[in-house]
């Protein structure tokens, strides 16, 4: 498309909202999956819904692709631009439009940062439950598009479980309002369909969120095991006991080593695996449940158990866990992270198979995972300066995803398909199901201009460059789980 066609977009918007200088374009080239880069034709930085709507309608009329963008922390290339299109950056739409403590509902703009919702709700004793570890920086718009999770998904669900209504502009320039102000609704759950659509349906402009009362207390336990299998068995034992912990996380030795080096978190020495279990709730319930947890753990092959006595000790336990990914940078110049899911009872088997894949590829894999919901986060360590290692790492990642599919799980628990895993979609879903998803996309976007090249295979792959930490991780602003 000739440059002059973008002039009509520039003219449509207030001065400076459309930018196409090199510095701006470079800043938007990639997201948290730094392996993929692509320079867009321009970036629009709207300040109002009206400006977003006008821009999307212009894209629709001119058949120009657009990519919505929050904070660009996607780990699957979801917010990576397309070369013949524009980026619509939503960070300036960052108002909490209303917060109703009596009905425990907040209406927010898409650029509102996840943690700000909880901050605004805190004076009312409320919080916003989904807690991706990027929550200091990622936006609600991005969370909605990816149906993001966090450490507390098993008990409280993912983002979509906390979204009760969405106002959006579809790729055909139509304004829609799904759901409402109540957690109950009538008719098909359009809101649920929009959540997790990875920016392929259109742009969310106003999002109505459900708030929960803040848990009164936490009971956090760190347990050391001499084998990964023992840690896995402990997870099963907790589940069988009837307890419903808020979080259950496992880290294995390589990840512990990295975390220890990065944060001196004081995890049990010589542990092959550590398990973190966190209960939360009113003190009366915790008193009963922590005794129950203690006896369950006592029945496992634990060699050391540390109970956080106060908030500071709890933070220290979580710091080790949350630093695991950025700390992997201490073990290896580059790494790839996957987030496949397997049935919980097959976790041990999955980890053994990952070990085999790792040995065969000659690359080390550090495992960290949301054990409560079977969500693996294998970190595949490699050195991009060694020819062929990146390709081997990618092959290794692919084998792990196939393993998850074969075990009846999923290729992604929370990071989304994006660019990275799109080729695996037809392996997870059969042809009729893929056809249905194509038809649903077509219903919102017959021209395929909203975030093209994502989720569905078959589009030209963007250039690969070095993998590494997200720039904000390097700066120590965020860490991942």
């Amino acid at each position, binding site marked *: 498309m000739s440059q002059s066609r973008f002039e009509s977009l520039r003219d449509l918007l207030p001065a400076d909202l459309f930018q196409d200088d090199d510095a701006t374009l470079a800043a938007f080239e990639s997201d948290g999956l730094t392996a993929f880069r692509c320079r867009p034709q321009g970036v629009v930085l709207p300040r109002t819904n009206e400006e977003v709507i006008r821009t999307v309608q212009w894209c629709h009329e001119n058949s120009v692709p657009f990519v919505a963008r929050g904070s660009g922390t996607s780990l699957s290339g979801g917010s990576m631009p397309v070369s013949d299109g524009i980026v619509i950056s939503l960070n300036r739409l960052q108002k909490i439009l209303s917060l109703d403590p009596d009905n425990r509902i907040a209406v927010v703009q898409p650029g509102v940062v996840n943690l700000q919702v909880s901050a605004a709700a805190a004076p009312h004793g409320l919080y916003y439950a989904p807690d991706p570890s990027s929550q200091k920086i990622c936006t609600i718009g991005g969370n909605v598009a990816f149906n993001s999770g966090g450490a507390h998904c*098993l008990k409280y669900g993912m983002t979509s479980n906390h979204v009760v209504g969405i106002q959006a502009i579809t790729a055909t320039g139509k304004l829609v309002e799904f759901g409402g102000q109540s957690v109950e609704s009538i*008719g098909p759950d*359009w809101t649920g369909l929009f959540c997790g659509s990875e920016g392929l349906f259109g742009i969310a402009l106003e999002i109505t969120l459900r708030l929960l*009362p803040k848990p009164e207390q936490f009971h956090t336990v760190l347990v050391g095991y001499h084998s990964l299998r023992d840690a896995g068995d402990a997870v099963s034992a907790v589940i069988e006991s009837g307890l419903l912990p808020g979080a259950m996380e496992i880290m294995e030795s390589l990840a512990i080593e990295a975390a220890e080096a990065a944060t001196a978190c004081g995890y049990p020495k010589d542990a092959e695996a550590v398990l973190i279990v966190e209960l939360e709730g009113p003190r009366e*319930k915790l008193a009963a449940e922590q005794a129950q947890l203690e006896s369950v753990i006592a029945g496992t092959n634990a060699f050391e158990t540390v109970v956080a006595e106060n908030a500071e000790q709890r933070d220290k336990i979580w710091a080790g866990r949350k630093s695991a990914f950025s700390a992997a940078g201490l073990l290896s110049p580059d790494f790839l992270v996957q987030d496949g899911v397997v049935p919980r009872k097959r976790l041990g088997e999955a980890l053994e198979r990952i070990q085999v894949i790792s040995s065969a590829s000659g690359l080390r894999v550090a495992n960290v995972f949301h054990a409560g919901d*079977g969500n693996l986060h294998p970190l595949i360590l490699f050195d991009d300066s060694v020819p062929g290692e990146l390709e081997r790492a990618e092959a290794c990642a692919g084998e792990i995803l196939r393993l998850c599919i074969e075990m009846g799980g999923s290729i992604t628990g929370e990071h989304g*398909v994006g660019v990275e895993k799109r080729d695996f979609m037809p392996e997870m879903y059969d042809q009729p*199901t893929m056809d249905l998803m194509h038809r649903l996309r077509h219903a919102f976007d017959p021209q395929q201009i909203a975030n093209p090249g994502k989720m569905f295979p078959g589009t030209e792959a963007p250039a690969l460059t070095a993998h590494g930490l997200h720039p904000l991780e390097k700066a120590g602003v965020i860490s991942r789980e």
Partner: protein
Amino acid sequence: MSNDQKFPSADAGDVQVASSVTDLQQRVRDGQKLLPVGRQTKAPLAAFAVDYQAISLNTLSGIQEYEPSEYTFTALAGTPLSEIVAALASQRQYLPFDPVLIDQGATLGGTVGSGINGPGRQRYGGLRDFILGAEIVTGDGHLVSTGGKVVKNAAGFDVPKLMVGSCGRLGILTSLTFKVFPAPPFQLSGGVVCQNVQDACQVIAQLAAGRWELDAIDFDPQAMTVYFRLAGPEAACLQLAANLQQHLGREVVMLPELDHWSQIAQLRCFSSSHSLVARLPADLSLIKHLHQFAHQHADEFAYRVSVAGALAWLSFSHGVLAEFQAFLSQHQAAALVIRQEGGDRVTQPLLGARQVSTSQQSVQQAIKLAMDPTQAFPPLLDFVPVAAQ
């Protein structure tokens, strides 16, 4: 069920039974116009699809996979909820959203199709929050497997959620996968007597935002009482109840046997002179208006509040329908008729007149056609004003 049998509709005798998933697919491919039904527990949702053959999934019944350690089960859509609830209970697990009409024979498919939650929705969320996967015969006769069988999955569009509340209009559910939770060892119900509806709404808000983690918070305006349910270890429940009473500074009555929960579970009309039961998504401010409306039509209209004000269950006679439609329009609200127990019938189940723009309608219609390209299933429920008598 016995109530429905007393009042069969014109098409009631004409329910055909699907013999298998392949049979369903073949019927769709043969161009049959179908409406999937379960055990007719929410009859009005299926009625009014005049030119569509009601097709029962009762023979597609049975739990296919249940792995307590995974917190998941998969069952055929025609499986009675009673069978599922019993299987879960034997492993001390449950569906926390309190599915309704279990004793009346409600099926898993009909529960998803109607999208109805009981009072337990308050604590952990509703059907939409526990559905993980769905196999569906779409309008082109294909069988699709959407979502997943594990508790966490972010791959692809969330079609299972879309099916919640779809009332048989988007496809035929043949098999469903759900997340389940460990059942609490003990439950304790109580009531707080309030002065008026404003006071009750305040109590509801206080309870819902409090530290007690209540499982359910409902309100019965006739008894002017807010009911709550605690769940967990027995000692903790008793202590929490005592603390709650102290905190509110008013009397809290413990209610070991509370009719309210079972009335909601059975969706009974609250008065024998009423013929219709409907559900109305709401918030506390709408509840206050609803209270006035009910007061003005005392003999003909009654309501209960569930899910801390997010839902009202309505029971009313046909005579008040026109006024109620006007009330809904005034407040931009919509209600769905779930049961009709004799008397005059509504001509369609969706009441009210929420303004839906034409662009929104066209998007919803496009989604409908993506699911049902040949229009094998009835059109989406729409607002058709019911003529005043």
